[in-house]
């Protein structure tokens, strides 16, 4: 057999049949659903009289719309959102699909909940009506987002009509400097290759930098690289990934473990596998990154400057930059450091995990949120929230003046009641700085949890490396 990339192996091992020269029927091991991209798919099933033949390979989570106010019982007051949650429960009950409902102790953001509860295993194909499904590549599972028509297709057939992507390898070597994280790394990569730089490709990450990253950091990387247009992001599972999975999936532990380990051992690209394109980056020069514009690739190192427009040669790129600066109210050629912020949001499927909260708490400890700044921490899941509380992180945050909230997507896409007013500038650990993303007219600066914490205590965008750890 000819040499294959990890991506090809995963596609091949899930190909039911080829439909034509370009498209195949891809078997989906796990399909995740949420409350806002699935309703019309279920409606389609009812209309057409289709069944869900494999309900146990599907799971649903209420995550985007729910309030995060720190109350014990959460009540969705917006009637339309409440109807979405009720409707999801009704649909899951009808078809026998497992659900993590609004007040489930294990509720959280779908991409945080699924791996932490052991639902994601190496070698799987995982899909979801949400673009950041690429997260699961961190465990050697092929994950990608789909639209609602495809959600309906998967529910009815447990397969997807799929056109394979091209192969890209991104090798990253070197040690990430102190004060920088996977978030800085991925923002740096997106800045280099652009918001369309990996469109049409499945990306495999490798190199000594990737090897050194924790599994949670790899989630951040695979989650956020979607913003470069990828159709999948993979990291070959190593011992760290396998330990992560086996410690969370007790059903594998006994009779299947040896067979699973043997199968996972084959989940890597063959040494002479050919990629359509390769990039090689050095992590040792990466500084903390901050976005200045309205696309995640409009990013700069904290000690760098927003590009001067006349240095951008491409006409349309220059136009986008000018448009973005008009929105964010920043000046071409000026420093990003020192920009005053009014809000800080720590959370999301990119950076709402326990390690993220630890990193932020490390900066916050012994300090106070700057006057005039509203800062909130929204854990990625109920489990993350409880773990943080067990470690005392919640007290570090609340004593500093942060709001400690319940789990959910919250102010990442602001579909719940956490919405920013026009003109408010936010240091955010989320994945998108699009116009209006956190509220119409609100301005988002993407950064790492530690950088967001540094912004909270200083009141402006600041270099976390300049802050001494006080704890």
């Amino acid at each position: 057999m000819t040499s294959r990339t990890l991506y090809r192996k995963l596609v091949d091992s899930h190909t039911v049949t080829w439909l034509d020269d370009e498209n195949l029927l891809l078997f989906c091991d796990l399909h995740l659903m949420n409350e806002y991209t699935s309703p019309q798919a279920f409606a389609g099933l009812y209309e057409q009289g289709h069944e869900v033949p494999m309900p146990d390979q599907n799971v649903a989570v209420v995550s985007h719309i729910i309030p995060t106010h720190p109350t014990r019982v959460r009540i969705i007051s917006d009637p339309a959102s409440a109807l979405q949650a009720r409707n999801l429960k009704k649909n899951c009950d009808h078809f026998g699909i497992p659900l993590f409902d609004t007040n489930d102790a294990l509720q959280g953001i779908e991409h945080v909940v699924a791996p932490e509860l052991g639902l994601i295993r190496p070698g799987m194909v995982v899909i979801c009506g949400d673009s950041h499904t690429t997260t699961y590549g961190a465990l050697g599972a092929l994950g990608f987002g789909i639209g609602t028509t495809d959600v309906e297709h998967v529910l009815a057939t447990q397969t997807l009509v799929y056109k394979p992507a091209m192969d890209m390898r991104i090798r990253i070597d070197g040690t990430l400097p102190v004060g920088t994280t996977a978030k800085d790394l991925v923002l740096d990569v997106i800045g280099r290759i652009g918001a369309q730089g990996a469109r049409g490709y499945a990306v495999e990450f490798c190199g000594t930098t990737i090897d050194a990253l924790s599994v949670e950091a790899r989630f951040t990387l695979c989650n956020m690289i979607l913003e470069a247009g990828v159709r999948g992001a993979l990291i070959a599972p190593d011992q760290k990934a396998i330990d992560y999975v086996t410690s969370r999936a007790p059903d594998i532990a006994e009779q299947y473990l040896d067979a699973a380990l043997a199968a996972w051992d084959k989940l890597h690209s063959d040494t002479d596998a050919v990629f359509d394109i390769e990039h090689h980056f050095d992590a040792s020069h990466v500084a903390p990154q901050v976005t200045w514009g309205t696309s995640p690739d409009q990013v700069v190192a904290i000690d760098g400057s927003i590009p001067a427009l006349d240095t951008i040669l491409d006409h349309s790129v220059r136009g986008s930059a000018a448009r973005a600066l008009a929105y964010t109210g920043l000046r071409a050629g000026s420093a990003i450091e020192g920009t005053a912020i009014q809000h800080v949001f720590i959370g999301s499927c990119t950076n709402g995990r326990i390690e993220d909260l630890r990193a932020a708490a490390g900066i916050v400890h012994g300090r106070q949120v700057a006057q005039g700044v509203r800062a909130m921490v929204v854990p990625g899941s109920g489990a993350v929230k409880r773990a943080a509380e067990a470690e005392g992180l919640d007290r570090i945050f609340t004593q500093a003046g942060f709001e400690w909230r319940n789990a959910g997507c919250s102010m990442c896409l602001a579909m719940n009641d956490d919405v920013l007013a026009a003109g408010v500038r936010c240091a955010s650990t989320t994945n998108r700085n699009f116009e209006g993303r956190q509220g119409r007219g609100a301005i988002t600066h993407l950064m790492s949890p530690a950088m967001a914490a540094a912004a909270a205590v200083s009141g402006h965008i600041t270099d976390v490396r300049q802050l001494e750890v006080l704890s």
Partner: protein
Amino acid sequence: MTDNTCIQGQAAALCIENLDTDQIMPKQFLRGIDKAGLKEGLLYDLRFDTQGQRRPDFILNQDAYAHASILIAGSNFGCGSSREHAVWGMQQYGIQAVVASSFAEIFHANAMNNRLLLITLPPEQVAQLMDDANDSANNSIDIDITAQSLRSRNVQASFELMPRHRRMFLEGLDSIGLSLSYQDEITDFASNHWTHQPWLRHVAATARRHL
């Protein structure tokens, strides 16, 4: 369904790169459990000011473009969120086709699944089409799906469609029905897949029971 083979209409140039689906269909319009009412939400922040008044300078608000049904767009159109509401909203507004030098992948699949025609052309041709579209007196475009060709005042272009997508447009392919015709193959595949990797079966239900 009227004529499936041709689209003819006025074009409007939307010269914005990386126009994301958050902008095409903002979050406040995603609260439904059906597809209704999305026409109102299309490009809402670009069409309306904060008081809800129409922005007169936005192209689709100008009288000459009130009935535009073809958009000439910037590259990587539809990037970001997977929300199919963006496609439904465009269709409810009356958009039948979008021409750009590139489209984001999930948006592309969503559009094709709903028979919103996306045409990818080289950047120079897209730029010419934008010029043509900006002459509101003479900005009609003819698209022939059978011939995979497009014609405006100054541009004559042919475009590629995947054969499957061409069939979707011309025959109204029932994707689920077609895939269900492989039901036996799917069942056999799953059975074999789970024999070799039993830890992939009932994952969601098993986990839910354990927790």
